[in-house]
């Protein structure tokens, strides 16, 4: 096999161009990386509401606590199990700072049967100002006699 082409790597050829095109096409179909799971599916924050969804199916409802202190929302869970081989204890603590425009008086939580904990809070409504028209009094001019 001749080594002529290897000593001159800059030489172009139809085969080389075709291989490069196929390699570029393959790279387009190969995902660069699987994105790490974001929190956008967990927390919903839009103009109407702020919502948090957690999967707590391993915890009983009596093992969970939700505490609201100002704008700080705390969700805690503790669980203890005793088995034939020993015991198992697990806990979690989730502290979420609610946005400023959340109506903290209307926070509601819901626990579904399959262990999905949902906490929702509506956003405050903007104060609806209305313009007051200025009523101009008619000017009466009396001619004094």
């Amino acid at each position, binding site marked *: 096999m001749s080594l002529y082409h290897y000593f001159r790597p800059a030489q172009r050829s139809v085969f080389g161009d075709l291989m490069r095109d196929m390699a570029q096409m393959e790279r387009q179909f190969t995902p660069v990386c699987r994105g790490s799971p974001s929190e956008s599916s967990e927390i919903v924050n839009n103009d109407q509401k702020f919502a948090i969804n957690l999967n707590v199916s391993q915890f009983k409802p009596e093992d969970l606590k939700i505490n609201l202190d100002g704008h700080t929302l705390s969700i805690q869970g503790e669980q203890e199990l005793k088995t034939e081989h020993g*015991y*198992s204890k697990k806990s*979690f603590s989730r502290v979420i700072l609610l946005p400023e425009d959340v109506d903290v008086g209307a926070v509601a939580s819901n626990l579904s049967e399959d262990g999905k904990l949902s906490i929702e809070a509506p956003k405050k409504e903007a104060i609806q100002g209305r313009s007051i028209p200025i009523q101009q009094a008619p000017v009466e001019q009396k001619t004094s006699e």
Partner: protein
Amino acid sequence: MLMLRSPYSDSNALDHFLDELTGSVQFPYWRNADHNSFNFSDNIGEIVNDESKFSVQLDVSHFKPENLKIKLDGRELKIEGIQETKSEHGYLKRSFSKMILLPEDADLPSVKSAISNEGKLQIEAPKKTNSSRSIPINFVAKH
């Protein structure tokens, strides 16, 4: 798997950059864990306790290996894990503590642990071998 580069084509810096970028990008297992889920540190399958070994498997996919501790105190095997995360919305912490009493015939100095790339922790203890042996009775002639 990328194709072999043709020796005839020009290889520029962009190709090398893309090759390095897509070459072997693999996230560790705790990056892919479902952080919305608070189901963690479960037993995977049943605890194996037969005449050759005692084995337990745990799902520790939310915890990095440096955040796990395994202690053996006599026959008490303790497994602990702590994970803390800060995000734009707040703070998340989860922890577990598990105590497993090993059986009496477990060979305690031979306890081993291994963690797989899917976040599966396996702790195994072989059983002691039967070390009893029969002693023959020697006859002693009496005078």
